[in-house]
């Protein structure tokens, strides 16, 4: 997968390689503070570092029109502890073929793609039909097995669309 170099919400610029240093791999999540589906994964993403110390987690905020200040206040308001990179012109989302949030990518230290798609099937864990997608891929990767389901379709809120910059009716 292509590397990128983007500013953190704090202003410092980071590239993907720096997240992979000393790690077995990384999970990259395209994310938005506006996206109502991403909200559901706040806890999961906050816990990610302690659950998977071998991996890095990095969120990329690519949604059109979402400013750094807005992202900072959302992150502070929701107590988000994972690193969020700001992809203001959605270029990285385009390079990574991503139109919706949340969409996750699991890559190894050499940036080879192991899994891409949804985190789960948008059911709730207590639902009998619940299926996790990302976690089984991580388990397989960390235990040296091949990833069984390498791709799932994403869903969620769109990253770019002309409708979001139309005059707001509200």
């Amino acid at each position, binding site marked *: 997968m292509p590397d990128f170099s983007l500013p953190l919400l704090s202003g410092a610029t980071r590239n993907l390689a720096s997240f992979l240093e000393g790690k077995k791999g990384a999970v990259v999540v395209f994310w938005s503070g506006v996206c*109502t589906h991403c*909200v559901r994964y706040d806890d999961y993403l906050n816990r990610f570092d302690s659950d998977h110390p071998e991996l890095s987690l990095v969120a990329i905020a690519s949604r059109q029109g979402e400013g750094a200040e807005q992202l900072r206040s959302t992150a502070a308001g929701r107590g988000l502890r994972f690193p969020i990179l700001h992809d203001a012109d959605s270029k990285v989302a385009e390079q990574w073929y991503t139109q919706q949030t949340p969409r996750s990518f699991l890559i190894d230290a050499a940036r080879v793609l192991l899994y891409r798609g949804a985190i789960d099937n948008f059911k709730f864990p207590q639902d009998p039909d619940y299926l996790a997608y990302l976690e089984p891929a991580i388990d397989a990767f960390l235990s040296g097995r091949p990833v069984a389901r390498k791709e799932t379709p994403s*869903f969620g*809120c*769109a990253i770019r669309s002309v409708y979001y*910059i139309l*005059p707001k*009716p509200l």
Partner: protein
Amino acid sequence: MKFLNALLRLSAHVTENGLLMADSAMRSIQQNLGKLSGTEAPAPPTRPPMEGPADLDSATSDFSNRAFRILQSARFESGSVVETSRELFNAAMKSYSYEKNFRDWMLFPLQLPLSFGTLATQQGLRTLYAARSLSPDRVPGFLAYVTEIFSDLHVYLSLQYKERLEKLTQRVSERPDDHNARLDLGRCLIKCGRYTEAAFELSIAARDPGLRRRALYEATVANCRAGNYREAVEAGTAAVLMDPLNERAQYWLWLATRKAGGYPADFPQEFRMELKAGQHPSTVQFEDVARAIGLDKTAGGRGTAVFDYDGDGYLDVVVASAHGGCSLYHNNGDGTFTDVSVGSGLDACVNVFGIIAGDYNNDGVPDLYITRLGFFGGECELLRNNGDGTFTNVTRQAGLECWGPAFSAAWVDYDCDGHLDLFVANNLGGLFDRKNPNRLFHNNGNGTFTEVADQAGLKTLYPTIGCAWGDYNNDGFPDLFVSNGIAPAQLYRNNGDGTFTDVSHPAGFDDPCIGSVACWCDYDNDGWLDLVQFVWSPPEDTIYTLRTGHGPKNSFPLRIYHNNRDGTFTCRTKDLGVDGCWGTMSASVGDFNNDGYLDLFLGNGDPQMDRTEPPIILENDGNGRFNNVTFAAGLPFTGKGHGANMADLAGDGRLHLIIASGGLYPGDLLTVAVFRPKTVPGNYLNVRLAGTRSNRDAIGARLELRAGGRAQYRSVSGGTGFGCLPYEQHFGLADFTRVDSLHIRWPSGLEQELSDLPINTTIRITEGSARWELVYPAERTVSNQGISAAEALTQNSSNTTPEVPS
């Protein structure tokens, strides 16, 4: 009572005529004033109104919508009349900020009331038609539903729900006792998919005695959607006991009890729900194979199109999504699929409603046309198939730029010149909006199109949802049926010279209904195309149907119009045994039980978060009855279906029922379902046509197949409902082991007849050639009995029928 009904009907007609007259009078004054000020009636927009409304009428609609929303949210801020007035003033300034010249300013005081006047007459007509399309007790609920949907969807589609959630959350934290706001917050959270939080807020709102009834019901929905079935049963039980007349609460409680292990032991028998509909014995058993074949996309499902994008013979699938991009699935050759969306160019197409495949440039690979956001306004796009798995947006080069609330579209070669033309149906773009003109684009034959709706005589009288092209009078030219949202439908006869005549009244399409999509199909195999107009019914009518097996007395089920062969149609729904009411949004027609008679497949629901509804299948028994066999055939109890499609995805004679499920609210995500018959239900023959003089996909061709002394008729359609069926025509042959003949009338006018056809296989016939070829390799075709594909292939090579000159 009869007298009263007649009087009511009469007064409705008087009101209707009054409104129509007032509308046309004000319109002509508007036109004259427009001439005075030197402004012409604005052309339909080609691009998004980034600078806001560009003319007076759009500005009036825009302002009305804004004002409605401001007044709606103002109820929480009692006492702030000044603030509300300020907001209304700002809204007016924004809406009417388009450029005006001196004469515009002079005439503005005259034109403004007229603009509001025509908006009011149109809104009035719609309300009137709604009242005539529903039983009286359903009208208030319907109006509330329409109001909520149209004023709400903009907020959710343009991702402004964050602001709404913040506003409500702030209100609730400032005034924890404002249970109205909390109820709204709960409902808003459900729409966003945050069900557990919603259930929590609703449980607090339920402490208010005045709101308890509503809050408990909404909490049932939230808990059920969150998978907290035990909590859903608790809330549902309380909701039903508090309000035993709430049918929706009874329904949701029933859904929850199915998962939670039944009703509480002490729950009164009379409020329990039982399922009576869909129990008629089915000739086919279905299983959901979406996950097994790789089509289980989770999405706000919209249209589906089944087409062979890469020319390998196997049918591929594209699924549109209201929120995400389109998904393109490649058929691996065995009926399983690989998601090849990424990089195809389709993955970047977000917010798509309808999607139709058609080879507009006759280059041998089908292209795609998409419509967007039928409640809001969006850009329609033409995506040219590059033949290598990628698609390029060529809308501008093709001269097809248009912006509007387009619902469905269809490819058609209305002038039979061998090039596919395009029809786009436009709905309403807001609660207060004027009808947006439907478009007819003529293909110039060089990759460009010219809009000709006006010259062709196609008038847009009402907001349109569905369109269906079919040659009902067998004169060789496709005619147009327009299914309107809340209005009478229209039938346009093709005069054969590029113009159309509105024959709705003589044909018998006078009664208004809440129409959704429509299909032409010859359900009784008499050689004349009949018509099915699907209808949207309120949830209460659907629940009534589910629990009794029949629609309520004064309800309006789907309409099956029988072609009387003299240019008139008779609605025969009741005679055919159909009285169930469903909220049909999408539907298609096909012979899924291979008995030689066309069956119906309905995708149902509506955007409301508290509406979930099963897809319905109506089996045509060939003796003049359509039986609801849904649940006996193994289909599920819930759903929300767009893009209902039927296709033989594995090429083995089994029509798969494909349904892209999901709603418009971001929280309403469901998975695409694919129901496949467990066994091949009978012999069959799939026929694909390749035009040479006609358009490449032979859209508009008429096929007459004779087998076992019976005839069956198909016409190749270029768009059904939200998407399109494959161009492959599936003929069920029951236990007949031989096809006597196949007569084809090509859109070019060429007629040809083939005999000695194989069965239980898929063949391709090229225009003008008396031979046919197998689409799939012979060895993979399963032969039941009679002439096997391989045997027939030998016969075909020695086929002595003379070649038809092309």
